């Protein structure tokens, strides 16, 4: 009858071109697919970390008498226990905890920027984008300190580079640099992209376009960066 003919017509048009089958714009959909591919890349890196780590001896002695040695994988508590300006102290996981909170908060400010964009509230978009950029810059600074502290060494040790390090097997430092470096590169590019969109918001480019969807798209990238950090933090520092 007439009604079933209409239903068939609609299905044909959903994938026939000229409409958005998944109800999102081309740009947003492509950002999602890019993030999926990037997720695969990071998953490969993290799972490889698992493979390499579990092919090494784990430290099995008592916690208090842990010493660095190339014979066993180090306990993260003893490698990452420094704080800026407080040399020689033992504050396990404090600094990385601060970094994690900062990145999660910058993700929240990004959500608020997207929400403001959906209401055409340019002033609020600018404000929240600025906070997000600031959070990203602080995270990068923290990561830079973490690297420099790691490289220069603890307690008079030789520090670390890609060939040898004082904390454990050579692969420990190599994997630390590679994975946190690759993630840090994503944070850096995210900050640059966020700044470009912030600039476009302030100069009215997005207002003239009539939509702040660009904020949403870069927001997806920024949340992805935060998401990866949540996993990196778990696998490097907690497990």
């Amino acid at each position, binding site marked *: 009858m007439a009604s079933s003919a209409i239903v068939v017509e609609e299905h044909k048009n959903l994938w026939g071109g000229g409409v958005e089958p998944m109800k999102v714009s081309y740009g947003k959909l492509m950002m999602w697919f890019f993030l999926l591919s990037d997720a695969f890349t990071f998953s490969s890196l993290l799972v490889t970390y*698992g493979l390499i780590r579990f092919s090494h001896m784990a430290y099995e002695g008592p916690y208090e008498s842990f010493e660095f040695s190339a014979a066993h994988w180090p*306990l993260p508590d003893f490698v990452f226990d420094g704080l800026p300006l407080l040399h020689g102290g033992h504050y396990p996981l404090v600094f990385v905890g601060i970094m994690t909170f900062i990145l999660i908060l910058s993700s*929240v400010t990004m959500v608020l920027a997207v929400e403001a964009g959906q209401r055409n509230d340019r002033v609020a978009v600018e404000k929240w984008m600025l906070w997000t950029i600031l959070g990203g810059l602080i995270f990068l600074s923290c990561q830079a300190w973490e690297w420099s502290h790691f490289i220069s060494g603890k307690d008079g040790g030789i520090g670390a580079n890609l060939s040898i390090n004082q904390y454990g097997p050579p692969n420990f430092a190599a994997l630390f640099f590679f994975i946190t470096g690759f993630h840090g590169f994503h944070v850096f590019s995210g900050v640059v992209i966020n700044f470009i969109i912030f600039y476009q918001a302030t100069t009215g480019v997005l207002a003239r376009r009539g939509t702040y969807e660009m904020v949403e798209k870069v927001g997806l990238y920024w949340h992805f960066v935060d998401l990866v950090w949540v996993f990196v933090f778990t696998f490097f520092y907690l497990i």
Partner: protein
Amino acid sequence: MEQENIDGNVIPADKAKIRKIWKVTAILGAITIAEFIIALGFPGAGGHFKTATFIIMTLVKAGYIVSEFMHLGHEAKSLIYSILLPCIFVLWLILALLLQGTAIFEALGF
């Protein structure tokens, strides 16, 4: 010189939406704090229970970030599945490489 108003109408904020955003933030913060308490309260390597707990908490955080912050939870079903179903391959990758890592460990004679 008169500034042309290109901003259009600013819709006022929906309080419920903003509250929800901060609510999810609080949940993420609480899970992270719990992770720290477990990490520092039970120091020492390994422990299958500890490892599994961290992984589960991380997956819960990931779920909130993807479904609420990235809004995937409110998108069309076909988009949700396009993103989530390929991740099954990652699960396979995790299993395969953990098994391989153990095999290498044993082959090295430890």
